[in-house]
């Protein structure tokens, strides 16, 4: 298992380098310039100067190598320095966002907590809702519960979050005043009152995304359960005189969870990718919003770094999914 993991990680390096290059070329090719959000009142010469100061005019190859160097050498050194108080990085120039002129890594680090709490919670919630629904739908296949589940999850797929999100805001913030319509990222949970506030402001975004995720995962859970419910070992378990609960929740579930867990693992990078629309609707200002504003502002260092981190996560969680499979399913061994 360990060598498998290390081998995959080693193989991932050239892959990721290639991906980073492609992303870089793509971003460079994309229309738009870092000046797109500068008011038209700023004269041309000033704009050209600003672009030059950003280094956006350097040859692409140079910029790419520069980015690689900063991403793989300087930023890790900075992290190291930050952790241990050393000064290896010296005063080498860090990768700076074109928009805010602050180190890209710092901005990303700042955003991670809110994205993780909101999007992560909703993913968790989605899983928690999806599993029992999927299990029960499969156990009682074609019952009204199952039919209703199918119906609702299909609706869940088809109605976009920009609609459900606003709907919730109109109902619960504007009409009922139950929840705030705007997420406060500065809120720090220190006591029960602030915790209550945090829960309140998370409720709607988590609900919107959670339901969406639940719809998806419950489908997987259901089909996986259906597959396993008819296996021979289920009959064996019953013949042993185990209760129905143990049969379904221990024997069938454990087997059914294997593919579902890997699907869930494969979905985790999307948490870090942020839910662009949901974050926008509820003003969560997480990584999704960061990415989209950076794209709009043509903030190449930021977009490149974010996308690359995303790529790393995708490759990483592909591996995690494989490893999970190996851990959960004793039949699979990687060596």
């Amino acid at each position, binding site marked *: 298992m360990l*060598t498998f993991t290390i081998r995959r990680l080693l193989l991932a390096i050239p892959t990721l380098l290639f991906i980073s290059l492609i992303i870089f070329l793509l971003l460079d090719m994309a229309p738009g310039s870092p000046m797109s959000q500068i008011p038209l009142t700023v004269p041309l010469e000033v704009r050209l100067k600003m672009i030059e100061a950003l280094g956006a005019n350097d040859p692409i190859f140079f910029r790419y190598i520069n980015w690689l160097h900063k991403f793989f050498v300087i930023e890790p050194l900075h992290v190291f320095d930050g952790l241990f108080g050393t000064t290896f990085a010296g005063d080498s120039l860090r990768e700076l966002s074109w928009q805010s002129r602050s180190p890209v890594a710092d901005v990303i680090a700042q955003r991670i907590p809110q994205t993780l709490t909101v999007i992560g919670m909703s993913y968790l919630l989605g899983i928690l809702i999806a599993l029992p629904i999927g299990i029960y739908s499969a156990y009682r296949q074609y019952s009204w519960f199952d039919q209703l589940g199918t119906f609702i999850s299909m609706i869940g797929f088809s109605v976009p979050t920009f609609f459900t999100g606003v709907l919730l805001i109109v109902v619960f913030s504007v009409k009922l005043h139950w929840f705030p319509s705007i997420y406060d990222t500065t809120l720090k949970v220190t006591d029960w009152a602030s915790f209550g506030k945090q829960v309140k402001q998370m409720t709607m975004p988590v609900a919107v995304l959670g339901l969406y995720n639940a719809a998806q995962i419950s489908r997987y859970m259901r089909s996986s359960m259906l597959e396993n419910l008819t296996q021979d070992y289920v009959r064996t378990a019953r013949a042993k005189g185990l209760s129905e609960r143990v049969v379904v929740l221990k024997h069938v579930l454990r087997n059914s969870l294997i593919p579902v867990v890997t699907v869930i693992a494969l979905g985790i990078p999307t948490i870090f990718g942020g839910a662009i629309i949901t974050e926008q609707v509820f003003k969560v200002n997480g990584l999704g919003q960061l990415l989209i504003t950076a794209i709009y502002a043509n903030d190449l260092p930021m977009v490149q770094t974010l996308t690359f981190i995303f790529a790393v996560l995708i490759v990483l969680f592909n591996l995690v999914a494989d490893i999970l499979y190996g851990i959960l399913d004793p039949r699979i061994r990687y060596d």
Partner: protein
Amino acid sequence: MLDAGRRKLVEVRDLKMYFPIYSGLLRRHTGDVKAVDGVSFDIFEGETLGLVGESGCGKSTVGRALLRLYELTGGSVVIDGDDVAKLSPEALRQKRPTMQMVFQDPQASLNPRMTLAGIIGEPLDEHTSLTAPEKLARIYQLMDQVGLNRNFANRYPHEFSGGQRQRIGIARALALNPKFIVCDEPIAALDVSIQAQVVNLLEELQDRLGLTYLFISHDLSMVRHIADRVAVMYLGQIAELSPRDELYAQPLHPYAIALLSAVPEPDPSREGARQRIILQGDVPSPANPPKGCNFSTRCPQVQAICHRLQPDLIEVAPLRFVACHFVQPQQAQPAGSTGGTEATEPTQQGVNA
């Protein structure tokens, strides 16, 4: 029955089929599953060679390698004059009609989404340029040949019984008038009463069309019924290759002896009296076969030499080939005495231990 002048249709020499095992950080090739490790035999035109052995000993692999469904690791397979192992893809395709295969699991070997006519017609599509009516006529002819009602042409595999499905598989194999058919456990998945139907059909076709079979099975009684000569495989190698009657009357290799003794007889009087040789332990992994004789880990008559030297397959009596240190040409006696109770005692005969 086996006159020496008969033409050899299939000549297999030192066939090796290894499945690579990759491991380590860089996925280096660190070993092989030696599924088939140096197997040689001939099949004469019009004869049936039975291939028996326990599960996992490499029977299917031999069968598949013969038709080059795998790329061979080593050795040669000459079928009707051409070395199949070395043919170019196109030449191989041209050659395919002469050699066909019937698969073990009739359910699994039929595409569940094709109709009977589609399945039987597939080889015709690939190798002939018949018009639609000609093709249909040929399909009907084949269906008649294997005893399938022409009305079934539009049915799907799941709508047939196991025996009928196996007939479809046979009809497909026959479609191109092959000379040689590998039957890979064609009856293992079938019900007893249907097994007989299929075996009879195969025999009948052989009589009618002069086919040559490699009949793979682990059902020794059925092999006795159908085969002219029988090869007993153990862990990727042939332990014994003998004409059928001689083998069943007096097996020579210790593994053959054990194997035959294990077959239950549907006769309570004899069944009760029979002495079984119960082998101990499990078959070693083909990825890591024991040193020396492959059977040395389970052999009731094992001696020191067995752990050191691998015996060659030698002709110990006319047409009888055995790979055992204790069965030598001068005295074609079974390894060990015939009594199962004494099986653990090393044989004294002819061996200067």
